[in-house]
């Protein structure tokens, strides 16, 4: 029963592996405007998100993530993609990201192209048990933004 080669599955795109290994937005902000936390009691994964806001927009985001590669990469790519958005745009992006994960809308290959790099998580559609890994940072983000006074 020798099996050769690792089937890494489309789920583990190189972007995900690289962002998990070398995150670009990891850490804390010195003076965050708002903070949020997401915890997954099923696996112990945890993300904390620090956000600096100006009057209307997200200036900068940092995350502290203890979790699997999917969760860590999702946190890092989320931080990248929401930087510069206003609160409403970030919440809207979160909704479209979740919709992509559960395969809402079109079942064809025409994905929501506005999701950009976040589309690497689309294969999670066939890994239902792992969808929450990618959503965890977004839960932390939404909690943080719920404290925003903008």
């Amino acid at each position, binding site marked *: *029963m*020798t*099996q050769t*080669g*690792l*089937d*890494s*599955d489309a*789920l*583990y795109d190189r972007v995900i*592996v690289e962002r*998990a*290994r070398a995150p670009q937005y990891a850490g804390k902000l010195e003076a965050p405007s708002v903070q949020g936390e997401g915890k997954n009691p*099923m*696996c*112990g*994964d945890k993300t904390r998100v620090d956000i600096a806001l100006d009057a209307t927009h997200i200036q900068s985001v940092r995350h502290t993530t*203890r*979790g*699997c*590669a*999917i*969760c860590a990469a999702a946190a890092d790519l989320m931080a990248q993609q929401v930087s510069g958005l206003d609160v409403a745009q970030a919440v809207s992006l979160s909704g479209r990201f979740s919709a992509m994960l559960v395969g809402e809308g079109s079942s064809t290959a025409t994905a929501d192209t506005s999701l950009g790099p976040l589309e690497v998580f689309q294969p999670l559609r066939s*890994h239902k048990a*792992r969808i929450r*890994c990618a959503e965890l940072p977004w839960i932390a983000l939404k909690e943080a933004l719920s404290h925003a006074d903008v």
Partner: protein
Amino acid sequence: MSHPSMTDTSGLDLTAIRKQFPILSEKVHDRPLVFLDSAASAQKPDAVINAMVHTMHHQYANIHRGLYWLSERATEAYEAVRDQVAGFLNAPSREEIVFTRNSTEAINLVAYSFGSLLTPGQAVVISEMEHHANLVPWQMLRDRMGIELRIAPITDAGDLDMEAFGQLLSDGKVALVAITHMSNVLGTITPARQIADMAHATGALVLFDGSQAVVHHRTDVQALGADFYTFTGHKLYGPTGIGVLWARRALLEDMPPFMGGGDMISTVTFEKSTWANVPHKFEAGTPAIVEAIGLGAAIEWVEKFGFDAIAAHEQALTTYALERLATVPGLNVVGHPKKRGGVISFTMADVHPHDIATLLDRNGIAVRAGHHCAEPLMRRLGLTATARASFGIYTLQEEIDVLADTLVRIREFFV
């Protein structure tokens, strides 16, 4: 790569055994299934599947109350399993065998019924390595009855700290010690006889959660000095939905019922009900008839091979697996208890257990990842999750090779 040799002296014909498990010839993601999650639930041999189907085809009816041929046959078959289980555990009498839904329900039964006889000031001792099934019911009892719940620590190697355990017993307030007979995370086989002797010396009773243990070696509740013993059918190659509580008869007779309903009564009036004799007092409602018969078939099937052979096979596999896993870069086996069964938890540097499990699955290998329903143990170990490989009678040395080789490639993928 040169692999360590495996000395399997069991004499089991694994090819013939595997042929009896239809699911083992399935493919997963176009790869041969390598099933290494028997500690969560074991696969079922034809003997079990056929016994259950045969019952439903030919001799199914409700039991204990029908006055017709079919019901009498079903009752005989169901009650015959009680005899089998008594023999399986070397229980002194068949009336000491209570059928439950699983081991969790059996422990809840004891926590509720025996627990209702306790008073504030008394204590129950559990250990740091308990499954939530042998933890949460005692917390609920503590909160309901105002008793104290004491936690016996484990050593860093994953053994029960016997000195600390002794100290927890020393004030004589402990009414019950409830401890796993084999850890579902660390594989630790606890020194049950010693635990029982220490408990009895201070006037405490002992319950062993045998969910994992009964699968891997012969169980003799009298030799263990147990007062209560629980196990579940589905880890023993039997069906889900059927478990067992064994308790000494005098204890069962003193304990109030757990659930009320049909079959557990002697007489019922609107003013008052009286209870059936043990064990029926604890079996309210229509039981899992077909599942009990499936459990009987599983026990008969397992006993055909004998626990000497099963234990030899699993010990050889476990020893081999520990050697092979030690060669995987970055892999850390969690716990090195003195005596262990075929359950190995591990972590890998730079790779999260869930990523390990997902990638193993893509390669046809089924393992468990997470906290294994033992969150306090994970905290004690300073971990949030582990991956776990566990072995059964059908596990092959070659499957451990596939696991180890795939783990090497998974690490290479991430690092």
